[in-house]
């Protein structure tokens, strides 16, 4: 059985040259380059705008990372600002914000890994057991919906629900007796973040597993039934192995992006009262760079983050490739 999963085609793998196949080595000699350009001039011309976009909006900013080694002054520009070596990095590592932002980012990611990740799989598995097609479609339609609501609206609803008269505050006050605005209590930030994330993303996140479940060979179930395996045994021995490749790929992706928690929801909702749990690396970069104009320093923090992300992704991918023969790229 071919174990190609729903996701593998989305990933950079699809972009890489197919190994083995098409092995007539094309060499980059001066002659071959010239004749290639001559023959396919028009095709290259067609791709030019796209390439230009990638250069301007992806590769130029990579060059801009030079700022992290500078005391960047907007007046002097990237080429004219004085280089100060690793000072920006040292400043970050020795500040209290280093442990705080890295810790908070990790905490959010680990909670997502421990809660959101399995809950999404369980959601898909349970939905797979629903045999009434109409009901199943209804559940899917409704549970995907929140994913398309904008983050601003979601944040607006969260603020409303967590305000002193809000629905969630009412429930919490039942246990604690206080109707304090939940967004001003550091302890509540992570539950709010995770639960609202589940509300918005659970249905949509399950699509990938539902697709994988649909591609499990139905004959296997029939054979198992004849052998007398009950539904639970079937789940354990057919369903789970059938979707394991997808699960592993999603796991690599999750672990590999451990330190890249997006800033949008955080900067819409947090405030200085709850920085100690809410401030993550990306929101810190945003605040330092765009609100306090500390460009060089914030670029250094952001570069540190990108490099760690890159290493994490490559390492998890390598390990997974080695031990389970499943990989992203």
């Amino acid at each position: 059985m071919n174990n190609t999963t729903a996701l593998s085609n989305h990933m950079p793998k699809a972009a890489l040259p197919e190994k083995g196949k098409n092995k007539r080595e094309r060499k980059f000699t001066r002659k071959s380059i010239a004749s290639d350009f001559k023959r396919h001039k028009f095709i290259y011309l067609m791709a030019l705008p796209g390439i230009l976009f990638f250069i301007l909006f992806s590769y130029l900013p990579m060059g801009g990372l030079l700022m992290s080694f500078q005391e960047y002054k907007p007046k002097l520009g990237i080429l004219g600002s004085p280089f100060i070596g690793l000072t920006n990095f040292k400043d970050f590592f020795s500040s209290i914000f280093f442990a705080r932002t890295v810790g908070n980012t990790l905490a959010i990611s680990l909670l997502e890994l421990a809660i959101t990740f399995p809950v999404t799989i369980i959601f898909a598995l349970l939905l797979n057991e629903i045999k009434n097609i109409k009901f199943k479609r209804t559940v899917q339609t409704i549970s995907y919906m929140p994913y398309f609501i904008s983050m601003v609206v979601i944040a607006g609803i969260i603020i409303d629900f967590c305000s002193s008269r809000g629905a969630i505050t009412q429930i919490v006050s039942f246990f604690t007796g206080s109707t304090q605005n939940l967004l001003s209590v550091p302890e509540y930030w992570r539950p709010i973040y995770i639960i609202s994330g589940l509300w918005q993303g659970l249905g949509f996140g399950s699509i990938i597993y539902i697709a994988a479940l649909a591609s499990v060979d139905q004959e296997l179930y029939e054979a198992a039934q004849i052998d007398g395996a009950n539904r639970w045994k079937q789940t354990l021995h057919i369903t789970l192995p059938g979707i394991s490749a997808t699960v592993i790929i999603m796991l690599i992706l999750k672990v590999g992006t451990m330190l890249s928690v997006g800033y949008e929801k955080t900067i819409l909702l947090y405030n200085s009262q709850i920085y100690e749990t809410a401030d993550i690396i990306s929101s810190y970069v945003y605040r330092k760079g765009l609100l306090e104009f500390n460009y060089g320093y914030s670029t250094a923090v952001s570069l540190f983050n990108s490099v760690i992300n890159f290493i994490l992704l490559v390492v998890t991918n390598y390990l997974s490739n080695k031990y389970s023969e499943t990989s992203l790229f």
Partner: protein
Amino acid sequence: MLKKKTKPRIVFESFNYAFFILMIGACILPIWHVVCASFSDAAWVMGQAGIIYYIKGFNVEGYKLVFENAKIWSGYLNTIVYVIATTSIGMLITLMMAYMVSRKNLLWANTIMLLVSFTMLFNGGLISSYIINTKVLNLYDSRWAIILPGCINAFYLILIRTAMTSIPRELEESAKLDGAGHMTVLFRIILPLIKATLATVILYYVIMQWNSWFPASIYIRSINKFPLQLVLKEILITGDTSTSVNSLSATTGDAAMYKQLIKYCTIVVSTVPIFIFYPFIQKYFESGVMIGAVKG
């Protein structure tokens, strides 16, 4: 194959159905709350704690105030401009580039694809992009700052490229024999064959740009260029309902009361288009996530 269900199975299924009914409830409840509140009496909404699950004193005062707000209108208009511009420019350049990287016989196709894929793993980050876009490309307070960076995306390019590579080469070769150029092949032969993927990518573009507020919040200063979501952010998060409330306070003198109502109404007004289009587009984003699943 009909079989008698065992007892544990029946128990499980009842629990399962109950669980999903609760799930649906939990998904809808916050939206229901907002909709009900938006049509209710402002004073009553103000005094209410917890979920509002019915409409009390039906009226559309809040909506009147929202629609009197010129910022909402210009926000709507700007968002539509941004959506159309990003989607059309983005699709055009992505298609043309995908056409190139989908050809195995080009010397540079794989190299370029590698460089493109690399941008998915590593990027310059927020601050560096901001400095490049404002200081080097001079896009500060320009509508292009919202449109251009959103145009190209490695993920979309890969989606389209994958669809293109699955088309048999014979098709375009026969078209070439009939004298068709590359543009004709791309737009007349290939496009109709990858419609499903295109619809998915267009959908991603539209949703992304419709919901986008962050780039505008850092690049745009002039209010007349604000997209809807940024106007919304000022009303919902920053709590700035001034324009609509000021016109009101003169007549009723109770601005705070309406502030809450206006928030609910703006949420509805800005989200309704998504909900109207949602049923039509649902099958496309599902197929988008599942492209490639067929191979399994």
